[in-house]
């Protein structure tokens, strides 16, 4: 069960503001996490509490294919991102690296900065504990469930290759 405070973002949050291009030569996700959302709010990384949740408006993660964007969110301790829609490369990357994401229509309208949220990843049930309103995330296609059940794309594709490796 995921439970934490909400960090609210608007629409079209691009991967450049999640992690700026100038940091894309940093190999360590923990180091990257120190710069997460720096260009929107230089104090974000120091204020963010691991386990908290991002609620954003539509098209979260648009722009660059940089996988370091979901990687640094995960390394910063972002427990989940909920939004009405995600940009497609960010969506794939998040599934592949294991950042929990939840697609829920209009979700940004029902959350304010700092409210408490609980998410049950098994059912996709998202509850605003401050208003007691509940929402259900769109289920993942069965195929993606398999990737997640295998522990990510590397494991899933390895199985397809017939390798015994995890």
């Amino acid at each position, binding site marked *: 069960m995921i439970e934490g405070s909400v960090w609210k973002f608007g629409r079209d949050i691009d991967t450049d503001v999640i992690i700026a291009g100038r940091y894309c*030569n940093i190999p360590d996700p923990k180091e990257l996490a120190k710069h997460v959302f720096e260009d929107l709010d230089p104090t974000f990384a120091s204020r963010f509490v691991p386990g908290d949740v991002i609620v954003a408006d539509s098209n979260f993660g648009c722009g*660059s294919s940089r996988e370091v964007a979901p990687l640094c969110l995960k390394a910063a301790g972002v427990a989940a991102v909920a939004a009405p829609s995600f940009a497609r490369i960010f969506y794939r990357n998040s599934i592949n690296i294991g950042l929990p994401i939840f697609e829920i229509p209009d979700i940004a309208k029902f959350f304010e900065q700092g409210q408490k949220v609980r998410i049950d990843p098994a059912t996709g049930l998202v509850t605003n504990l401050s208003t007691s309103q509940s929402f259900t995330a769109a289920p993942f296609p069965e195929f993606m469930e398999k990737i997640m059940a295998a522990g990510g794309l590397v494991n899933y*594709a390895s199985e397809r290759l017939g390798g015994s490796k995890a």
Partner: protein
Amino acid sequence: MIGMSMTITEKILAQHAGLEEVVPGQLITAKLDMVLANDVTAPVAVKEFVKFEVDSVFDRSKVALVLDHFTPNKDIASAEQSKQVREFARRHEIEHFYDVGKVGIEHCLLPEQGLTLPGDLIIGADSHTCTYGALGAFATGVGSTDLAAGLATGEAWFRVPESIKFVFHGTKFQPWVSGKDLILYVIGKIGVDGARYQAMEFTGEGISALSMDGRFTMCNMAIEAGAKNGIIAPDEKTFAYLEGRSKRPYTVYTSDPDAKYAQVFEFDVADIPLQVAFPHLPENTKSVQEASGVKIDQVVIGSCTNGRMEDLRMAAQILRGHKVHPHVRTLVFPGTQEIYRQAMHEGLIDTFIEAGVAVSTPTCGPCLGGHMGILAKGERALATTNRNFVGRMGHPESEVYLANPAVAAASAIRGQIAHPEEVV
């Protein structure tokens, strides 16, 4: 009629999945013809690739590794990244490995070298991989882990996208209007998520009239509308471009006349004026007249969007006999070494230098705020690049405006955003 009607995108995906037909929404696993990564995305992919415990990549002739983002390396961290990719390329005897001296901006380079062909299915760990759709290929950007799986298995999974058709009627373009203006205009109409998860198919007389360079620019920016791919059916111009470049056979696909589209947009090219996208989204488009007078500190001409011969010729045509404004640093980045040399042979480099322009070796450089032209706080650039997000070219309080090379050149001369007719 046998079988169902399909779009060009659906036909390519079906063929590579070994299926007779596919429908939008269907999840498929498809074989890859080319797998691409650069110095920023390949290191992460290499780290994931190792986990597959395979001895080699699926096919060393179907992998391209291009060190173009932070090269010539801007600092030690970037040098380490390049070194990792270089060592991987040597260990796996990657045929299409491009290092400094041979390297060009990946999406200018691969088509030029004949590595991306009509009917191909291509993934690249770079969002602008969609550029190759201009050749009638299905090409899309992925992350590093997807790329690693592609390197190991030669396959990737896809959700078959719905297609949106954009029909450009007529051939009476307004003066100086190019592929850049057409695609900015479309993004301005549909928004940065207007084609999210979907295929953008460009067609009509207006597209037939465009050069290959203009078509690359259009497909390049499909991602800025959230699209999975941009695509243009091959025609005589495509075949002429491929002459002397393609080294393997290719397949030409076209959409069936009764193929199904999620949406159809129709435009007359005569109605499309020169475009400028204001900060901080590519959808914030206005006509150049509406942008006129915005003071600028820097002009960047180049990138995977507009670093090709037509772009440099267009900029040089305007700059010839002029000096750039003393307050505007103007930078030109030819897309590849071949483009650089051709520009030299045509005297364009002389024109640039005489005008007071700095000409660089090919690199992605300032487009993603890497190096070679970073903006200070409060500075403003007009660029022929593809993104104007917050902090994209430097300081979070700097600004990027997007336009075509003619507008960029005219603005460099005037010191403010200007219509080319103001200077020629």
